[in-house]
């Protein structure tokens, strides 16, 4: 996110330690950092719910009832909670990946398209290589998904590095291209049986992820998501490559000066976030849907953006915001059935959450200089 810059010639303080230096000094206590980091996002969510409550009221619905059904649909019972975690799985993966690329100050709005391409490649592996044993097939499938997403993202990255083309527009255009292409594949070459539903055949038994909590549908994909999020956190904040990516995000000139190859790091960041989106798709296909069809992603790529932003671009935080948005999705279905509120309202709520977080970020930066 954009940082305000300080002009040294106007606000320089002489180097004698004066009371003023400590007075307006930006030393922040642990407590204040904690407050902004945790309470901030929660406050942002509450504000978003408040505003959408007002909108629901104006449209003639009862917001309190609506929110109750939402909560029921998210935390009602054990089965429902596992559904939340299932919904959260792709969101955590996509969100964590976006944290990395947003930290590089690259606006990858193309997670949706990267998801689709990953879904296609992993479905191809799962269907046409189905005779392989699970121990080879599953990693291969996941890898295929990652590769698909990574390459699709790197395409946009290359457009930016080589041609200076805005990644915002190119990734969005690539979204449309990916979705249309998938539509072609599932109604044409990959269709399960000519004339039937626009979907592929199922992936082989051996390609399906293990469900570790029967009778629920929760599969190890959720565990994979958590592990990847942790891995990306370590990468971003504890590794040299993460240092380089963050440097590029703050200041490409300073990064060049520091000996960092900016172009290469842009491509790396895109590859990571695209790969995460592709992995999310592979996990969906091999864990939940077992086949590819036209609406394989109900906007995961865009919700993923909200997940990353709510987590202040911290992959660990993406675990929690991923679960939150998973709950939102899950609850919205129930809300639609019980309260009659079109579940697409949840998309608007996502938008409100992003606005709240963006606003809170500004004040957070002012008071903690982070």
């Amino acid at each position: 996110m954009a940082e305000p810059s300080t002009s040294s010639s106007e606000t320089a303080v002489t180097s004698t330690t004066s009371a003023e230096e400590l007075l307006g000094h930006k030393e922040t206590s642990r407590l204040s950092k904690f407050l902004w980091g945790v309470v901030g996002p929660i406050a942002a969510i509450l504000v978003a719910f408040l505003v959408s409550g007002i909108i629901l009221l104006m449209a003639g619905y009862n917001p309190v009832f609506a929110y109750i059904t939402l909560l029921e649909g998210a935390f009602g019972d054990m089965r429902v909670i596992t559904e939340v975690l299932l919904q959260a799985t792709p969101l955590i993966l996509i969100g964590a990946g976006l944290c990395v690329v947003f930290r590089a100050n690259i606006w990858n709005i193309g997670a949706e398209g990267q998801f689709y391409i990953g879904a296609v490649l992993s479905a191809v592996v799962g269907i046409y290589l189905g005779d392989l044993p699970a121990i080879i097939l599953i990693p291969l499938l996941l890898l295929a998904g990652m590769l698909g997403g990574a390459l699709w993202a790197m395409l946009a990255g290359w457009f930016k590095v080589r041609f200076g083309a805005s990644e915002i527009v190119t990734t969005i255009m690539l979204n449309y291209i990916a979705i249309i292409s998938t539509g072609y594949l599932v109604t044409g070459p990959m269709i399960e049986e000519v004339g039937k539903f626009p979907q592929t055949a199922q992936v082989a038994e051996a390609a399906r992820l293990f469900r570790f909590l029967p009778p629920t549908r929760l599969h190890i994909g959720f565990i994979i998501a958590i592990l990847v999020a942790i891995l990306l956190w370590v990468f971003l904040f504890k590794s040299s490559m993460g240092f380089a990516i963050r440097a590029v995000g703050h200041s490409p000139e300073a990064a060049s000066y520091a000996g960092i190859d900016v172009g290469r790091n842009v491509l790396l960041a895109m590859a990571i976030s695209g790969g995460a989106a592709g992995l999310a798709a592979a996990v969906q296909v091999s864990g939940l849907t077992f086949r590819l069809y036209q609406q394989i992603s109900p906007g995961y790529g865009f919700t993923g953006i909200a997940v990353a932003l709510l987590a202040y671009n911290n992959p660990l935080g993406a675990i929690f915001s991923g679960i939150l948005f998973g709950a939102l999705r899950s609850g919205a279905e129930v809300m639609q059935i019980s309260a009659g509120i079109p579940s697409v309202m949840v998309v608007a709520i996502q938008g409100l959450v992003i606005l709240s977080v963006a606003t809170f970020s500004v004040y957070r930066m002012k008071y903690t200089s982070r």
Partner: protein
Amino acid sequence: MDMKNDYEIILRMENMVKTFPGTVANRDVNLEVRKGEIHCLLGENGAGKTVLMSTLYGLFQPDSGQIIYKGEPVHFHSPKDAIQQNIGMVHQHFMLVPTMTVAENVILGQYEPWKVLNDMEQVSNKIREISEKFNLQIDPDAFVRDLSVGEQQRLELLKTLYHWVDLLILDEPTAVLTPQETEGLLRLLRELSEEGLTIIFITHKLEEVMQISDRVTVLRDGQDVATVNTADTSPEQLARLMVGRDVLMELPDRHGAVGDAVLSVKNLVVENERGLIAVDNLSFEVHEREVVGIAGVSGNGQTELALALAGLTPISSGEIYLDNQDATHVTPRQLSQNGFAHVPEDRHKMGIILPFTVSENFILHEFKDQPYAQHGLLKESIIEENSTRLVEKYDVRLASVDEPISSLSGGNQQKVVVARELNRNPRFLLVNQPTRGIDIGATEFVRQQILLQRDAGTAVLLISTELEEIFHLSDRILVMFEGKIVGEVPPDRGLIDEVGLMMAGKEVRV
């Protein structure tokens, strides 16, 4: 200059207070300016001079205080108000829009939004008139981006003279001028003063104060410490008032003879951002244990030279050798690994990463290398140890090495940069405007460190627009004009006039 015995006070600023987050820029400043005088506002970088005048001009709103102009209390909410009261300001950093013409820049902000621009002819004519009258040659239809630095300066001045002004404020106007151009400007200002114009002249250069002002107010640390008649004071006294103590500039004497060439530049040609030649067939060498200073008005290719040497911009032709190895087309990382250190011109854009912590900034070049990283992971305890040690050694004032470096003052930020670069004990050190925008304590320190590094055997290339600094620190001085080296002189202050002429492109025999 005749002594004005009976005087009229045109401006009085009383108890001005202005704070920004983290600093108090003006604390209880009082200023009194007499009609028709040239009044200097003197102080070191960060003393609060620009803030005070910006407040007067309506760019900032004061926290408290009173401004009395021509006998009436005034409050300017925006520069528009000040301009209406016939106050003009020439800013330190040019306030010109490069993509618009001279004429458009002059009338910018003057008209109501709905006014149709059908009188540009008349505007251009008026500009030509004023150019003539004040000898400020400028073409009204030229685009600002095509003007030279000196012409842009003239345009800044012309913008204020386009309207009737009674009070003219100039903020460090000579920063980009050669000594001769400075002379011309000061002469013009004296003329204007004689015609009755009141002038407030912000500067940190003592010679200018002595040359031009009637009275001078010294600011230090956001407060006014004295107002004196220029005729009654001396540079030493002013310096003492500016800094608050006797200014020692004890710099270590050289010991050790100049050694072999470390940096060798041959026929270097570099283009600038717009594809024009900025460095024009340049050749020179820098040896061990020597400081070579490059003097010149900014905009004559120094920036491009520095970037080219540092591997940050492509080279059109020519060669660079570092310790006899071809360094013409190498990456910054390779240079860094071969003993090349660089204190860049713009620390905010390049030298440091503001949101990163002080520790992270200390390892900016070495975050991939041992001992700060192993198996790709950062070793935090070693990084912290390193920071603590450097902070101690280079006297960096801060609260914690884990704070973002943006919370440090400019001087301390620069100390971090210098500490980082010198700590690697480089073979070659490139310093570009090392003391720009920092307080005098840090300035002294940085200059000292440069010379200490020289004595340790490093070859130092110093680029600076402050002639004082060049003369103070260099063993040899090269003058750069329009991308070429037009002269070389020893650091003999008697040659300052010649250097000034060379900086302006005149042929001089030395």
